[in-house]
């Protein structure tokens, strides 16, 4: 076998394993990213879609946050304006997670058959206060 061919074999092996690792990784770790409305649509269409690991991006319903006294569990509602879900999360929430207007969150977890979303992770993006000041000044 010529050196070039041997090299190509090695190269194919590397490229193949990269491809294999990527395909496997996506298959076994990929999760859906849905809005509440999309999630509702899916569970209506497919009744087995409960308890499937997924991420949901939505806004926290203002005033809906209930924290337990130890700060270790929070319950809140998320909504995209079409559909809303109660979420329960055990763990520490990020600083940016508040009841203020328009806090966008990404919750990762599973929707139970009881309609409650049990989150294993909560990420929050903060709204921009400066724009609020700007609007006040304009009004």
């Amino acid at each position: 076998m010529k050196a070039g061919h041997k090299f190509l074999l090695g190269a194919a092996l590397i490229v193949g394993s990269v491809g294999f690792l990527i395909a496997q990784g996506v298959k076994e770790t990929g999760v859906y990213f849905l809005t509440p409305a999309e999630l509702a649509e899916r569970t209506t269409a497919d009744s087995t879609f409960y308890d499937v690991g997924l991420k949901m991006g939505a806004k926290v319903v203002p005033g809906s946050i209930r924290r337990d006294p130890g700060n270790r569990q929070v319950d809140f509602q998320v909504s995209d304006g079409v559909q809303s879900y109660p979420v329960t999360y055990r763990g520490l929430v990020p600083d940016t997670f508040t009841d203020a207007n328009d806090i966008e969150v990404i919750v990762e977890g599973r929707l139970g058959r009881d309609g409650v979303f049990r989150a294993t992770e909560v990420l929050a993006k903060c709204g921009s206060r400066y724009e609020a000041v700007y609007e006040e000044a304009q009004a």
Partner: protein
Amino acid sequence: MTLLGEFSLWMALLLGVWASIIAFSGRWQDRPDLAASVTNATYGIFGALVVASISLWKGLAGHDFNIEYVAAYTSRNLPDGYIFSAFWAGQKGSLLFWAVVLSLFAALAQLLTPRRYAPLLPYVAGVTSAVTAFFVCTMLFAANPFERLPFTPADGRGLNPQLQNPGMMIHPPMLYLGYISITIPFAFAVAALLTRGLDTGWIHAIRKWTLVSWLFLSVGITLGMWWAYVELGWGGYWAWDPVENASLLPWLTMTAFLHSVMIQEKRGMLKRWNLGLIIGTFLLSIFGTFITRSGVIASVHSFTQSNVGYFFLGFLVVAGILSFTLLYTRWPLLKADVQLESVLSREAAFLFNNLLLVGIAFSVLWGTLFPILSELVRGSKITVGPPFFNRVNVPLGLLLLGLTGIGPLIAWRKASAANLKRQFIAPVTAGLVTLAGLLAAGVRDFHALVALALAGFVAGTVSQEFYRGVRARMRMHGESVPLAFGRLVGRNRRRYGGYLVHVGVLIYFVAFAGMAFKREMEATLKPGEAVELASPFGHTYRLTHVGISQFEALNRVVSAATLSVEKDGELVGLLSSEKRQHVDSFKRPTFEPSTEVGIWSNLQEDLYVTFAGAVGGTEEAVYRITINPLVWWVWFGGFVLALGGIVTMWPGGGPTMARATRRGQAGYEVALVEAGKE
């Protein structure tokens, strides 16, 4: 001042358009005055952008809150250092920073490039001017840093508290310098393609530039890890966040390029691959900027969404099409001088290293873009997170680490059985001894075992190289050990600096492996209550909650929760973590509250404490406590890596010296080959 700033931006745009039109028209080839005019235009652009930058800085320093950018990113009570760094803290300012630094590099490339590459320079100026003009254009039409508000706020919003960290004053500029300096090698590559001067000349001309951008990227990425570790508070330094990934991508392809150019220099192979790599690296640097600014992918590091993203996407597509088309039209000129002779050769080891680096880059890119790709192709958004990146990149990274040890041991062209035996015995033994030691110490984590054994092997390789080099010098020149060592490194900076970089890389891997043994707990403690936590190195930490204190600092209201720390029964000190509410000069709260973590660090492990909040206004505190093994070594690895990078590019001597060195090195290689025959 904003008027002057905006006027300067327009000047820079006009000069940039002029320089690129003249450069690419090729009219300068028989008109020396036009060639000079193109070069002068790059100096002019730099001058104009310096004026624009000073205008913005004056606005920042003078608290001119009528300027939207100044009001959005600073406030009266912001410390001076952060007023200075607010220049690049926001979208618009960072675009100006980018443009001014690029124009500086462009001017330096014109000034510092030796005369023998003069035919390339007008084209180089054309590319750099076009890229600068693009950035200026984006500012003028989508993100003008000099935009004024219809009213003047009494105080600005202040800087995001997470950016109020000394690391943030240097991390973004370092990373930007890395991203930006990639444009120069890219410009030389395009110039070489346009002039059809496709021998190794352009590669020699950009050697320092590629090392400079690689070094800035490395330092920038490491500082970014440090910032994430001390500021984001989740207990780690790398989360495979899209913006982190975006900075890793050009670093990976640039690392591949630094290795593969050696093959082109020595053997005249891989010409197409090298051009493809440098074009790809440039596009990835623009892609990184696009990801950071467009908001297409959510990230903790990103700027707020804006239509600047469309400008970058457009530029990315146009630059990609133009440069790859150009490469395609020169394809036949780029045939390799020789063929690969053996798979057991340094060339082949470098090729595999390149494939792995590009493979890792591809998988990271794929994972980062997967939400978008899956939505386009299958109509539903699917995301992948850290588990995906770890699954794919841990095995690939370990293979790469293995090649780091193998590459320097294999001879160029074709390795003989004798050569392999002579080279590999000691390093392989070092790896096996490491493995045995770890097994005896009770380590059972598979990936950590492989990583540490390979690290032992690479350490063996590097030590053997240094040992043999020093011994050869001592024999040939009768030098003492320190002298031989100093001259060995000093006269073969590229080679031994490179080995030092490998040492840095292996330290990184050891530190990363340590994170497999992370310990984590949450605790709710009343004052006086304590928790115990055992560390992977067998120490026991006892943490007693002292209490929560509240105080006001310069621009914030702070609640600090304090723990007293005992290690193995001995008091080592107090550790505080703070919740901060930043306020403006009227004591109105700005931003959401932020957390400052408490870290107690030693060479073995970090005790990392996050104050998650007080229970119902009492002094009962909720803590998250983690023990992160070997984190100190990440920063030390970064230091060694940077040191190695500096050694490889340390200036010294002119061409004469380089020739002498090459002769010396060749003689030394002959000596080694002869020694091998004994």
